[in-house]
């Protein structure tokens, strides 16, 4: 019971962090973004994705290969977008 309550609190903190990060990302993006803005927006998206993967998907206790695969999807996609936008 205590574990479940701690896990629920942990999820609620994750949700709260995601809401704050979403507000930040909208404030940052949208204008005529230079390289720094794009990097910041994608950086925040990376952090948000990490929260979803680790907390919501409960991957922190999963085999490393699967965990790395998910994080790699986000990282490679963000990197690809940043490189393409910079070209």
């Amino acid at each position, binding site marked *: 019971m205590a574990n479940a309550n701690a896990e629920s609190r942990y999820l609620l903190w994750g*949700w709260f962090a995601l809401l704050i990060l979403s507000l930040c990302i909208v404030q940052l993006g949208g204008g005529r973004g230079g390289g720094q*803005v794009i990097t910041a927006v*994608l950086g925040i998206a990376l952090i948000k*994705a990490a929260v*979803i993967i680790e907390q*919501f*998907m409960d991957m922190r*206790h999963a085999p490393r290969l699967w965990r790395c695969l998910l994080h790699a999807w986000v990282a490679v996609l963000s990197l690809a*977008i940043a490189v*393409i936008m910079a070209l």
Partner: protein
Amino acid sequence: MSTLPEAFATEPVRRLPGDLAMWCFILAELTLFAALIITFAVSQALNRQLFSAGRALLDRSTGLDMTLSLLSSGALIALGVVQVRKAAQRRGAYLLIAAFLSALVYVWIKSQEYWHLAHLGLNIERDTFFTLFWILTGLHFVHVLLGMLIIVCMSYTAWRGEFDPQAPSAIESGALYWHMVDLIWLMLFPVVYLING
């Protein structure tokens, strides 16, 4: 120096949540969306002015509202899974119903946005930006609708107390699908609504 069995005893047990089949499906979906998002980024790099003008016609606050409703829905599902795991299935069902309602807010906002854009003549044939916008967000929208159907099934099963708290892979698989939808939106939203390269 510890012996080998002692070393294993200190290692936490690692378990992949959900079914392996669901994970294969999730990887396939993530690959598909990655290809589409990269296509969008490449098209933008080739025609920056067109994409900037197209993006200016979208409402960022609408995008934010959709993000918040999807994230809230994801959090409620994760909380529901925790309740089912500790055998409080009725409470889990309430949380899953709340997740469904939050997803419904996304569907309502997205439908309003689609209706508004279509009313302005900004349909799939307008230009490259709107072609890719409708394909990307439309495909995601279909995934959301499918996810909502899964949430209804999960809620019903939890309501009847038919999940096995000792073997929660069925409810975890449903939840994983929804979190995948969230994860895709987290990458799709900045690329489509925010980043003017």
